[in-house]
């Protein structure tokens, strides 16, 4: 039984996601908002594996998202590929690039992966912006076909909503398995002490690289979904602001748990809907939220709630005795 408890939060997520359209109304604007929450969650769950479990930070996941979106968009519009084939191709391209960047930098210590991914992300944006003939430059390009599944076109927002959240659930399930697998245990040992882990025969660099590639692939996959949903991409879809936003989502929610990543993503995606007139100042609000949460609960909202719950439990126990 105990081994099944780890699936309970997933069950709750699936239930909530399934019922959500009936709570807000099936034609509600919130359906669109939560399509984006789902798309970004796929990235942030992968990123939380990288940050919380492998202890590395990437400031280039916006670029992987962009590579997924652009590869999907270009292959379907210019080369007339089947959208699913384009998604597969963009995943492959991203894995190769992530391996090329991750292999040398993950062997180093410190901030090197952060800076290498940051530089890489900026190069990607520069290329997408400069190759005007291919990508339409700063204004981007449109006409990307919608995805279809078993002959059913995912044109309808509600159908696409369920499609995306089904994928999010699969990604969560997959991540739970990784965390509780050999790789997950190896990563946790690396977090404890990389030297000790190495001495025990854990190839730290190899596992870190695998998680980095996996998280990059998830980002590219989300980017492909975004392109086929929006039917349009431009460099704003992958600029640095997105990379930073993704890291902020993970950190605010709590980077040591995929649930934290989900909470952070929901919170920061719906926040602009409430900021309204302050639209221009959203960046300041995000920065302030990030610093305040880090100062009061370095493990993010999820970590903070867990700590508070543990504290209350101990208090109760003390009163009982």
């Amino acid at each position, binding site marked *: 039984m105990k081994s099944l408890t780890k699936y309970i939060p997933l069950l709750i997520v699936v239930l909530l996601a399934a019922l959500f359209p009936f709570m807000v109304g099936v034609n509600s604007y919130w359906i669109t908002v939560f399509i984006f929450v789902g798309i970004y969650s796929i990235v942030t769950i992968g990123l939380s594996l990288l940050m919380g479990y492998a202890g590395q930070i990437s400031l280039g996941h916006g670029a992987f998202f962009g590579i997924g979106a652009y590869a999907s968009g270009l292959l379907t519009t210019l080369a007339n590929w089947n959208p699913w084939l384009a998604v597969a191709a963009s995943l492959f391209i991203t894995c190769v690039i992530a391996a090329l960047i991750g292999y*040398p930098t993950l062997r180093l210590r410190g901030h090197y992966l952060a800076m290498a991914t940051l530089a890489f992300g900026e190069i990607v944006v520069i290329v997408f912006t400069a190759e005007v003939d291919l990508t339409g430059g700063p204004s981007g390009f449109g006409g990307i076909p919608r995805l279809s599944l078993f002959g059913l076109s995912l044109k309808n927002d509600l159908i696409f909503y369920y499609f995306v959240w089904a994928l999010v659930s699969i990604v969560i399930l997959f991540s739970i398995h990784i965390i509780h697998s050999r790789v997950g245990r190896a990563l946790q040992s690396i977090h404890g002490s990389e030297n000790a882990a190495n001495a025990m025969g854990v190839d730290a660099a190899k596992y870190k690289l695998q998680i980095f590639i996996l998280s990059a692939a998830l980002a590219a996959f989300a980017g492909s979904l975004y392109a086929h949903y929006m039917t349009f991409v431009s460099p704003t879809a992958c600029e640095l602001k997105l990379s930073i936003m993704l890291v902020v989502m993970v*950190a605010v929610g709590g980077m040591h748990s995929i649930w934290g990543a989900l909470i952070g993503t929901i919170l920061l995606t719906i926040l602009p809907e409430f900021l309204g007139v302050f639209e221009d100042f959203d*960046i300041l609000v995000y920065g302030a939220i*990030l610093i305040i949460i880090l*100062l009061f609960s370095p493990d993010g909202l999820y970590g903070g709630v867990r700590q508070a719950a543990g504290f209350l439990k101990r208090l109760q126990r003390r009163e009982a005795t």
Partner: protein
Amino acid sequence: MSFASQILQYLVTGLSIGGIYGMVAIGFNIIYNATGIINFAQGEFVMLGGMIMVSLTAAMGLPVAAAFILTVAIVALIGGLFERAAIYPLRNAGVLTMIIVTIGGSIVIRGAAMLFWGKESYILPHFSGEDALVLFGAFILPQTLWILGIMFVTVCALTLFFRYTLVGKAMRACAANRTAALLSGIEASRMICLSFVLSAAVGAIAGIIITPISLVDYNRGFMLALKGFSAAVLGGLGNSGGAVAAGFILGILESLGAGLISSAYKDAISLVVLLIILFVRPSGLFGNREADRLKKF
């Protein structure tokens, strides 16, 4: 203009912009040496330097020299406040949290700058006119000389400070071995705060002297920080002499690349160099191979 003088022109342009990269890199190094943190808000200090200088001279009519000193003081104060408000309370957290909190700091400073100055670009008048000097057919703006001169003075002052003053020696001691420094009575936390103050001041100076030749807006800091970091890694992280040399190399490569290859890819050149150096020789051109041994992760 002959080809040779054209090349010379690119070199001159590269030197002035490279000097700025070098100074930004020194800002990174000062904090890195003291704390092992890469301060992702470093570019924001540069941006603030330019912005505050514009406000003090254009809006408040202060003379250039007074505004210069006041600007550096204000930004240095902001650097110190940032350390006290965000870095000091998290001193026991992991490196990952440290990176994220400096990112948070950079977002907050950028957002505050946008609130305060809006999204427009601002420019400063050149310090001493725009009549270019001609050297072998290449034009040299007087501002280029100001940049190189002020940079030279800053580097010399920093070197003297770290080598010969008691506080400078205490800061180096903290960088080398914090526990030993604490045991000899050096207050490490004060030295770390001071490193942010110094680093912000150097960033502000770079921001002030570059603004006459390139515009400044609230978003300007990020790219300068990234290129400054490229210079810091190319020169060997923590090695400030290397940072200056690497800054010049990057500036010249960038201006040659923009002139001879493609100006659309101008900003990518330093970044490609950064990636290559991380792959091939992460300890930098002038660093020793042990450089990355220092910092835990």
